[in-house]
């Protein structure tokens, strides 16, 4: 599980929070949802509201806190089938007395004659709450039910009634409500935002043809909270929200030097890449970025350390055959189980899916080092900003865990004036190595320079290098070495 950023129970006295148990949400909410109060979840269709409500109850049930799911939209069977997709057996929670599902669907063929209200539902809730000693209630899609009333002031009165009961009964409640995109009706349920103590908006949008989900907290009475929009994913194990948090300020310091796999480069860097640092290899096409990355991978495998290779540009087979020419044989490293290779098309999914996939791999494989080849391809996840979000989170995640990261970046030949990464990442990058392919006396010559290396003296000269069939050789002819 992600570590919560050590700020549980912050906020003034009087606000008691309970952890929702949903990955990343408690971090955003600075500890959890308000206890004994109502949290509103709003969002358009398919944004994950019911899912979040359901997971809140499931996490509660797992921790021994009974809860009631009151839904006006779904059938009990549909919910159970849906939950089974995440490995949750709702019937089992029910039989153990940790969950009660009330599906209060309106019978569509009913005749309407005069006025009616929600009190019956409250009566049923009260009975259920007494029988299982419920602490949590999720009210899913009450708007479906209330629309029957056909009068916004009546809807409001009914919701107040329900809210009052939830508060008096001391329930920690989540209420989902549809937010509609058209202006005329979007304000219809605005009063709920005022009524609830905490308001969370869920959103699903398309950026450059890639669909992506976002969560934003817009209100938390009496408490601080993360005010940004956070990407989140719906995984096969539940919701995963991916904040960048205070935890970033508690990164482990840089560790000992690790050999880059190229002796002379270690020398130029004052010993090699630092453990837990982030190094960027940046250059035009064909300058040898991947070769340096693979040399490092093999160097770490030879030390018996695990390395995860995220490739956004080519397949394993393509990489292996390319690296045979400079004499780097990756296959045995992979066979030994020390090197794990994941390859993905950046545009295949939103950044939250990419992040979750990477985090999953990191949690399962527990690598000491991570290579991302190439971060420039991450722009295809939606936009420059999506790439930035992705990389910042992944580097943050690695730095919290003491994982060394090595990134490659393809500089566009058309626009050499761009900043080194093109994605504004320089603040989190410790070391930058620039690789070039220069024309010199009628032939192309490769050279490299260390642009930056935090906390280490390093060579400031440009050094020519060659990619031989026995690895990389860096010549000393153009510069002096730091001793």
């Amino acid at each position, binding site marked *: 599980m992600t570590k919560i950023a050590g700020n549980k129970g912050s906020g003034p006295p009087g606000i008691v929070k309970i952890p929702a148990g949903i990955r990343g949400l408690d971090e955003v909410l600075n500890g959890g949802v308000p206890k004994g109060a109502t949290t509103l979840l709003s969002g358009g269709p398919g944004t994950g509201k019911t899912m979040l409500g359901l997971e809140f109850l499931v996490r509660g049930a797992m921790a021994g806190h009974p809860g009631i799911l009151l839904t006006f939209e779904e059938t009990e069977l549909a919910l159970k089938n849906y939950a089974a997709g995440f490995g949750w057996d709702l019937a089992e929670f029910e039989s153990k007395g940790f969950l009660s599902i009330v599906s209060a669907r309106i019978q569509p063929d009913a005749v309407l*004659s005069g006025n*009616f209200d929600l*009190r*019956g*539902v409250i*009566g049923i809730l009260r009975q259920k709450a007494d029988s299982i000693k419920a602490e949590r209630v999720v009210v899913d899609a009450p708007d479906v039910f209330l629309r029957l009333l056909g009068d916004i002031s009546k809807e409001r009165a009914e919701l107040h009634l329900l809210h009052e009961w939830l508060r008096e009964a001391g329930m920690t409640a989540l209420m989902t409500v549809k937010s509609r995109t058209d202006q005329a009706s979007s304000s219809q349920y605005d009063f709920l935002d005022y009524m609830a103590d905490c308001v969370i908006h869920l959103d699903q949008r398309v950026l450059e043809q890639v669909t992506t989900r976002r969560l934003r907290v817009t209100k938390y009475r009496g408490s601080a909270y993360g005010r940004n929009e956070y990407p989140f994913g719906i995984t096969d194990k539940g919701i995963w929200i991916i904040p960048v948090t205070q935890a970033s300020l508690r990164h482990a310091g840089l560790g000992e030097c690790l050999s880059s796999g190229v002796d002379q480069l270690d020398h130029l860097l004052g010993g090699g890449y630092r453990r837990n640092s982030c190094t960027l290899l940046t250059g035009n096409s064909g300058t040898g970025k991947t070769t340096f990355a693979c040399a490092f991978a093999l160097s770490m495998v030879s030390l018996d350390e695990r390395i995860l290779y995220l490739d956004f540009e080519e397949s394993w087979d393509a990489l292996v055959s390319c690296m045979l020419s400079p004499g780097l044989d990756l296959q045995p490293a992979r066979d030994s189980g020390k090197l794990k290779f994941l390859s993905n098309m950046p545009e295949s999914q939103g950044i939250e899916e990419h992040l979750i996939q990477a985090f999953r791999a990191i949690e399962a494989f527990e690598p000491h080092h991570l290579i991302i080849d190439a971060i420039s391809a991450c722009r295809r996840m939606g936009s420059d900003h999506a790439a930035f979000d992705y990389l910042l989170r992944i580097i943050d995640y690695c730095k919290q865990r003491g994982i060394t990261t090595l990134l490659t970046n393809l500089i566009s030949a058309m626009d050499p004036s761009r900043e080194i990464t093109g994605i504004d990442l320089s603040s989190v990058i410790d070391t930058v190595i620039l690789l070039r392919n220069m024309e010199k006396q009628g032939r192309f010559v490769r050279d490299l320079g260390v642009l930056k290396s935090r906390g280490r003296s390093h060579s400031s000269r440009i050094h020519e290098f060659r990619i031989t069939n026995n690895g990389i050789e860096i010549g000393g002819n153009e510069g002096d070495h730091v001793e």
Partner: protein
Amino acid sequence: MSNKTPTRTSAVIRCVARLFVCGDALYSRRARENLQRLGETLHHVEFEVEVIDVNETPQLALDQGIFVNPALQVLEPAPGTLIYGDLSDFQALAAIFPKGDDQ
């Protein structure tokens, strides 16, 4: 039932129903009153109504899927009907209990 041709007096519709109410809430009270009035107005309907207070016995409402209150669940005549509301709209109700042709 007898096979006799229905006469004016036998054209009585027997209505078996449950009225789900919530204690003494306004609409529940009105539903009781309106049902009483309905019985007085519709001479051709004989009402047998069980009143169920959801506050006291919620289980039946839950089993029957009745979440709107007040609600009149008509069991007979078959196939039955569900009416939401305090029964103040008599016109909507009259359609459910049509009078015989001879009335």
